[in-house]
């Protein structure tokens, strides 16, 4: 029997070429195509993703065909099975059987399909995530961007608060309500330099009975025909007055003549800005120059703020050398230490940093008990499976429980997130710099904000693409480095050329990350796209 079995990542030819058998021998050619339907487990889908243990799958299919050939002798069998993403409506499988008569060809085809679905190591992993696996335990599917953010946030709680001096409070997150201790301003004061007279006094000439400057406190009741000379900020001597600007008055010794009187009172009233007890700053406010000045004006010189996190950053890898050192053949300079330090710097966090070799004993010795005294442990590992495992082991040895080891995002697929009973968090970051950049700017940032006591927020907003972006039809969500700028009153995003996830040139120019949904191979110029700003907009 002539057997040809292939796995393919491209479309399956339609129809399959009919095999050439001996002249006049084949009386039947039967072709079956298995086509991806638009729903799986009752949910609408766009595509299915197929994966195989390729060498074994081909071998197993051949074994099955040979086996069935003894029972149902046929002339030729062709099998094509697709791998990767197969859109709805396209064939995932095509089986052609040539036989002398239709009966044995049909029988072989039917039996082959039954055994294929039982024994051939090919899977639809995305369908598996929907199905109920044996034992009733739903296998975790790799989380996408929003799920990673949600799980990171669910895994962290705000650090304790401390009281610090105003001079040390810049950039910190307030953890208490700050109220006005008294009315602001605390008394009626003049908004201009001028002359205070009674509102109900229609006269236009007055005798000046006092001269009040800012800082003076001299209450008195004004009699009709009298005025008080008053400076900006000066406390009004009583209620029921108006201040006429000095430009609208003519001074003559101890008397003043008003040239014009407007309805404007030129008074900043007591409590106009805030009433005593009114909340002026809420917990979760970041203390910036303006809010610090407000605190100073209220006499709140020891605000309650979140303490800074203690962060340890460990870079693993035998091939890594410090940036000041010339790398030998096969070595590369460590850029991740610099990236992580600069990123944390924008949170006013200074990490302790270590470089360790890919050796468990050495790494453990180098780290000592330092991982025990941290709030956040970042481990930069290699991108390979082995190095990823190594990071997982380091985290587990430091008492962390791993929440997830991989994500459905690109880059950043082998991202580890782990938590510890004392509230500490850990990330195992994939080694390449772009993956670092992405994971830091989204996932580590979400953790730092939560630790700091900031309210949760949506990192993404929408903009328009300035140029087409192609993400290879990957079934993962893609985070694409981009430059967002405002042109002609509208923001637009230019995707940066990105060759590999180790690409530092894209990273140097990026000020945003585009979020391209899974299974979305091409977005054309003008399309709307979600983006998150990175921490260093320029």
């Amino acid at each position, binding site marked *: 029997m002539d057997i040809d079995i292939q796995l393919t990542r491209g479309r399956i030819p339609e129809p399959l070429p009919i095999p050439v058998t001996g002249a006049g021998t084949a009386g039947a050619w039967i072709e079956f195509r298995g086509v991806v339907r638009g729903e799986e487990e009752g949910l609408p889908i766009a595509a299915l993703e197929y994966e195989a243990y390729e060498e074994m799958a081909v071998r197993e299919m051949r074994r099955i065909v040979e086996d069935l050939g003894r029972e149902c002798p046929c002339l030729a069998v062709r099998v094509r099975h697709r791998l990767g993403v197969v859109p709805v409506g396209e064939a995932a499988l095509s089986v052609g059987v040539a036989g002398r008569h239709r009966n044995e060809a049909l029988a072989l085809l039917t039996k082959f399909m039954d055994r294929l679905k039982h*024994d051939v190591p090919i899977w639809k992993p995305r369908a598996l995530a929907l199905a109920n696996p044996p034992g009733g335990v739903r296998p975790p599917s790799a989380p996408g961007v929003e799920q990673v953010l949600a799980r990171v946030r669910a895994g962290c709680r705000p650090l304790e608060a401390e009281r610090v001096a105003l001079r040390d409070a810049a950039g910190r997150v307030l953890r208490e309500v700050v109220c006005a201790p008294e009315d602001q301003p605390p008394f009626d004061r003049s908004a201009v330099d001028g002359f205070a007279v009674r509102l109900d006094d229609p006269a236009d000439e007055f005798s000046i009975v006092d001269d009040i400057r800012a800082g003076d406190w001299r209450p008195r009741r004004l009699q009709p025909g009298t005025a008080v000379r008053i400076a900006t900020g000066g406390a009004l001597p009583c209620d029921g007055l108006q201040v006429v600007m000095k430009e609208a008055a003519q001074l003559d010794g101890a008397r003043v003549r008003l040239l014009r009187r407007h309805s404007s009172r030129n008074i900043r009233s007591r409590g106009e800005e805030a009433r005593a007890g009114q909340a002026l700053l809420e917990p979760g406010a970041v203390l910036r120059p303006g809010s610090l000045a407000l605190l100073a004006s209220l006499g709140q010189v020891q605000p309650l703020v979140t303490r800074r996190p203690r962060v340890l950053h460990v870079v693993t890898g035998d091939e890594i050398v410090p940036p000041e050192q010339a790398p030998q053949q096969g070595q590369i300079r460590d850029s991740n230490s610099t990236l992580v330090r600069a990123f944390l710097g924008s949170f006013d966090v200074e990490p302790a940093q270590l470089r360790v070799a890919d050796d468990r004993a050495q790494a453990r010795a180098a780290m000592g008990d330092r991982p025990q005294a941290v709030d956040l442990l970042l481990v930069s590992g290699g991108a390979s499976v082995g190095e990823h495992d190594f990071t997982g082991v380091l985290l587990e040895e430091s008492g962390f429980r791993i929440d997830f080891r991989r994500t459905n995002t690109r880059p950043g697929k082998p991202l*580890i997130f782990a938590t510890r009973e004392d509230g500490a968090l850990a990330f195992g970051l994939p080694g390449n710099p772009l993956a670092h950049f992405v994971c830091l700017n989204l996932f580590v940032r979400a953790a730092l904000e939560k630790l700091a006591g900031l309210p949760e927020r949506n990192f993404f907003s929408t903009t328009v693409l300035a140029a087409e972006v192609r993400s290879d039809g990957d079934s993962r969500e893609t985070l694409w480095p981009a430059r967002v700028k405002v042109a002609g009153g509208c923001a637009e995003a230019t995707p940066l050329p990105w060759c590999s996830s180790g690409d530092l040139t894209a990273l140097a120019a990026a000020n945003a990350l585009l979020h391209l949904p899974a299974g979305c191979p091409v977005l054309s110029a003008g399309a709307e796209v979600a983006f998150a700003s990175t921490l260093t907009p320029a």
Partner: protein
Amino acid sequence: MRVLFFAHLKDLTGCAEIRLQIGAPASADDVWRELLALHPELALVRGSVRLARNLEYAGPNEQFTDADEVALIPPVSGG
């Protein structure tokens, strides 16, 4: 030996392959013991997973050595 994971087992273990040292030829039970020591989460799926040795499903008395390529085959869903 090389041990390969496929489909949702990759999600479960967080990796596509690992290396195991078993020394002397070992039974499927011995291989599972080593595997579960490294990836206890596999206990959840052991009942539904078949072992393959060097591209063929392993029989009940199969012996495994360090030179083998072993694959964990969860229920398949091709076609």
